Every structure is written in structure tokens, then in C-alpha cells.
């Protein structure tokens, strides 16, 4: 398994860097937000928040679109079918997707911090180990959510709809693009159930308030739990061919992998 996993990671990485869409959405797209937000929200004074938002936007795209869409496309194009006739199991394929997503995304973190430092004078993060750890947990959690979406949908069209249904609320209502203070009360309550809100909260805590991962254990724990749960379920219900249909009830697994965040949201609303 380790030999297969290593080979899959190497090939996945090469394929990722040969794909213009991957390059655009991992590096250029977040940078567009970076410069736009930095100018809109006041440059130097709020650059920490800007970096937080940009990192979250990148992770959302990398996970939901990168992992979720690609797996469905490979199933539709009969690519996974060729893997099915070999002894390889779904787990190394899924694990390779998690690792590849992370390795593709890490340079974007460095690039964003470098630009924030050189252009807007943001000091490099003091809690860099916590930032790295949270980045790792965030990327693999959102990749895993992407993989569970791919596992339960039957087509690229269905995948696009489900990913949009997850992506847009998290982009707009978690603080990734619009600061939570500007949102109405119902949206702020809703945001407490969104994984992206916890990712942004943890990044803000580490980047702006110089806190460590230790004070963000709830977010980190929920990310880790979601990763493990989603990857295990995605491996269990993995489909190699588009002809293999999944029972509609299996779509409920999508809700199940959000359970850690639903629990956190409910907990935060308790008096």
C-alpha cells in the first residue's frame, strides 16, 4: 500500500501542476481576493484578517472543487475503472488526494504570507507551527469533504450542484469574504454550523492574536474528526464506475461527516 500511495502522490502532483485550472484556483484566484480585500479593508491595518480570509478561500476551493470534482470526473471518464482491475484499494487513492491537495496548497500559504509581509508590512506569524498545523488540518478536512461529495453523487452535474450548495454559503456566510460583523444575526448563527467559520476563526486567532493551536483545539479536533470520518466513509462507499449506483440513503453520509461542526455549533448556542 505504501508503494502505491507514494506512486499515486507523485503522479497526482504532476497532473495537478500540469493543470491550468489547478494553478489558477490555488494560486491566482486567492491572490485576486488578497489584493482586492487588502485595498477594500484598509491595507496595513487589517492585513491579518485579509490573509485569514484568503487562506480560507483557497482551502475551500482546493478541497471542495479540487478533490470533489476531480474524482467524479475520473469516474465518469472511465479512469477509475482501469484502477479497479488492479489490486489497489480506494484508501490509497483517497489518501493520495488528501496529501496532493496539501502539497499543492502549501506554496500558496507561503506566497500569501510573503506578499502580506513585503507589500503591507505584516509581520511573519509568531505561531508558525500552529499556522502550519491548522493549514494541514484545514486542507485535509475540506479535501475529505470534497471526497465524500464525490462518493455520494452520481454525475458531474450533481457534483456541481452539491459543491455549490456547500461552497457558496461557506464563502459568503463564514467570514471568508464578508466579515461576520457585517452580517445579520441569523447569518451569524448559521455560520456557527459551517466548517469554514471554524477554520477562519482558528486562522484569525493564530495570525492576528498570536494564539497557538492549543486554544483552537475545538476547531482542530472537528477538522481531524471530519477528515477521518469522511475518508473512512468515502473508502467504504467508493465507486469505480459511473454505472455503479448508490442507494439514495447513502447521501445521508454527507450530513454525517458534518456532525462534528453541527455539534460545535449547537454547543456554542447553548446558554
Amino acid at each position, binding site marked *: 500500500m505504501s508503494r502505491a500511495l*507514494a*506512486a499515486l502522490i507523485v*503522479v497526482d502532483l504532476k497532473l495537478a501542476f500540469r*493543470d491550468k485550472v489547478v494553478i489558477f484556483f490555488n494560486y491566482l484566484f486567492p491572490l485576486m481576493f488578497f489584493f482586492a480585500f487588502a485595498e477594500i479593508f484598509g491595507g496595513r491595518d487589517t492585513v491579518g484578517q485579509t490573509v485569514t480570509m484568503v487562506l480560507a478561500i483557497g482551502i475551500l476551493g482546493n478541497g471542495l472543487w479540487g478533490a470533489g470534482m476531480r474524482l467524479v470526473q475520473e469516474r465518469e471518464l*472511465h479512469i477509475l*475503472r*482501469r484502477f479497479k*482491475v488492479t489490486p*489497489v484499494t480506494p484508501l490509497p487513492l483517497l489518501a493520495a488526494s488528501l496529501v496532493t491537495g496539501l502539497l499543492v496548497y502549501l506554496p500558496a500559504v507561503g506566497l500569501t504570507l510573503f506578499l502580506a509581509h513585503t507589500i503591507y508590512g505584516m509581520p511573519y506569524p509568531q505561531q508558525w507551527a500552529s499556522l502550519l498545523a491548522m493549514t494541514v488540518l484545514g486542507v485535509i478536512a475540506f479535501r475529505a469533504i470534497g471526497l465524500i461529495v464525490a462518493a455520494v453523487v452520481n454525475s458531474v452535474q450533481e457534483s456541481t450542484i452539491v459543491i455549490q450548495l456547500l461552497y457558496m454559503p461557506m464563502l459568503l456566510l463564514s467570514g471568508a469574504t464578508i466579515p461576520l460583523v457585517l452580517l445579520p444575526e441569523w447569518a451569524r448563527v448559521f455560520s456557527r454550523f459551517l466548517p469554514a467559520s471554524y477554520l477562519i476563526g482558528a486562522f484569525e486567532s493564530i495570525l492576528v492574536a498570536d494564539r497557538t493551536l492549543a486554544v483552537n483545539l475545538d476547531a482542530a479536533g472537528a477538522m481531524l474528526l471530519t477528515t477521518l470520518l469522511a475518508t473512512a466513509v468515502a473508502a467504504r462507499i467508493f465507486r469505480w464506475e459511473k454505472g455503479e449506483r448508490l442507494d439514495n440513503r447513502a447521501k445521508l453520509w454527507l450530513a454525517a461527516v458534518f456532525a462534528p461542526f453541527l455539534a460545535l455549533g449547537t454547543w456554542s448556542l447553548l446558554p
Partner: protein
Amino acid sequence: MIRVSGLTKRYGDFTAVHGIDFEVNEGEVFGLLGPNGAGKTTTVEILEGLRPRTSGEVSVLGFDPGIQHRILKDRIGVCLQAANFPEKIRVWEAVRLFASFYSRTADGDALLRRLQLWEKRQSFYSHLSGGQKQRLALALALLNDPQLLFLDEPSAGLDPQARLEIHELVLGLRAERRTILLTTHYIEEAERLCDRVAIIDEGRIVALGTPREIQDRVIGASLIEVTAAAPLPEAPSGGWRDCDSFSLSGDRCVLSVRSRVLPATLVDLVKWLDASGVVLRDVRLQRPSLEEAFLELTGKRLRD
């Protein structure tokens, strides 16, 4: 190598495979011949461990594909009918990747050379021709040096030249005494490549044997066509042994004789020609083809 007994596959109310039986012996090329939708691919995918069976007994290399599919997949080579690779994977990268999945692997470079892909090893998959893609699929099927190969419609959709190349490769594998189960709806492919053939139609095996045995089993008569240098001097009586019918055409220069037992008719015909002093320009023999056998056995043409 393969034993199949009473194999049945149902999808809801539809029965794709109806209790078929056959065996594939070591070192032979066994063909499943039938039109699209006959149940060939379903059968093969059950044997490969890709699809569960509804009932029946199946043994492949001594393993039950329904239970021991992982160990089986490590030992067999499979060339699928419909499979693809990422557009931007290079040929050598695909070989290296798939080699990592098996417990034992053949020399990937040697395979690329053998399959005439060495010059293309740096090419992206999307830049390969149809024939090259199929050769790559064969290379990957051979990566674990399997003694048993499944080739599902290996030349479907290829141009005649590429099909010929694939045939040469399969004949090379046969010469190495590898066991091959091949599905096809091309008669000439089955006739050229297979030691034995099972004709499958609507999920049932309607004939099984060597291509020759199947041809001989059908009633359709062989044809002897004789072209004389000059018009035949006398009208033949047609009293040759086992002759079904005869006709003259081409200004009495071409004699066509239908025979139920070719050797007996041929001997008598040659004697009559000699006695009649006929100078021959050409003689052509045509046995009933597998296509005719298929038509007679199933009442339909293969490409229907």
C-alpha cells in the same frame, strides 16, 4: 485455469447470463464471440472479480473471484473494453504508477519496447493514437507478468492497421503459452487468434469448440469455384459425391459447386475436369465461415 459452471447473472428481472458452462485450459486462447449485449463483458467481469455473480460456480487460477478478488487481481492481466487515463499522464508515468500496485512486476521499459511505445514514453496519453492507447492498455495488462490475460474487445474501434498490430501482439502472447480469454464481436479476430471459441447469444452459449469444429457443425455447404481457361466443352451432370448444387457463369468459364463434404466432392470434380480436358486458370475453396455459423446458430448477424 478457468472453470465456469452454471454461471448466472441477473440485474433485477433481466437475466444477462443464463447458467453457462465452459473451461479454459492452460496455454490456450479462448474466445467469447457474440454481438454487443450478448453477455460477454458481464461474464468476463465476473471472472475478473469486478462484478458479483447471482449463482453458479467459478474458479479462476484456483481462486473464487467473488471472494478472493484482490489476490486474483494481483495475478491476472486485464485489458478493458472501455477504460481511460488522465490526459496529461505520460506513458512511462502510467507504467510506473500501475507497476506500484502489484506484488511482482515485469520490466516496464522492456514492455514499452516490445509494444513499440518506447519512442512514445514521454508522450501525454492524450497525444497517443487509438492503436497506441490500446498498446499501452496491453502493456499495463502485462505489468505483473500474468499467466492469465483477459482481453475484452482488444481491437474494437481500431483501424485495420492498428487491429493487425494488436493481433500480432496477441499471437506473440499465445506463442509464450500465456492463457488468454478474449471477447470479440469480430469473426475474423476469433478465427485468427482463438484455439477455441464459445459463441454466446442472449446470455447463453450456443456453440463451443475450435473455430473449425463450429464451422463443420453448421449445415451451410462449402463452395468450390473453378475458373476454366475456355468455356466448358460439355454441360456437367453434377454427379459428384456429396454435391449439393452447381452453377455455371462467366460464359460457361466459372463452375461453382456446393458441397456437404468438401474432400469427396473435390476429388470427383478434379477427375471429371481432367477427363473433360479442361484447362484450369484458378480454383478457389471456401468453407462456411464463423459468421455463417453464427447466423445459423442464432438467426442473427454478429454486427446486428
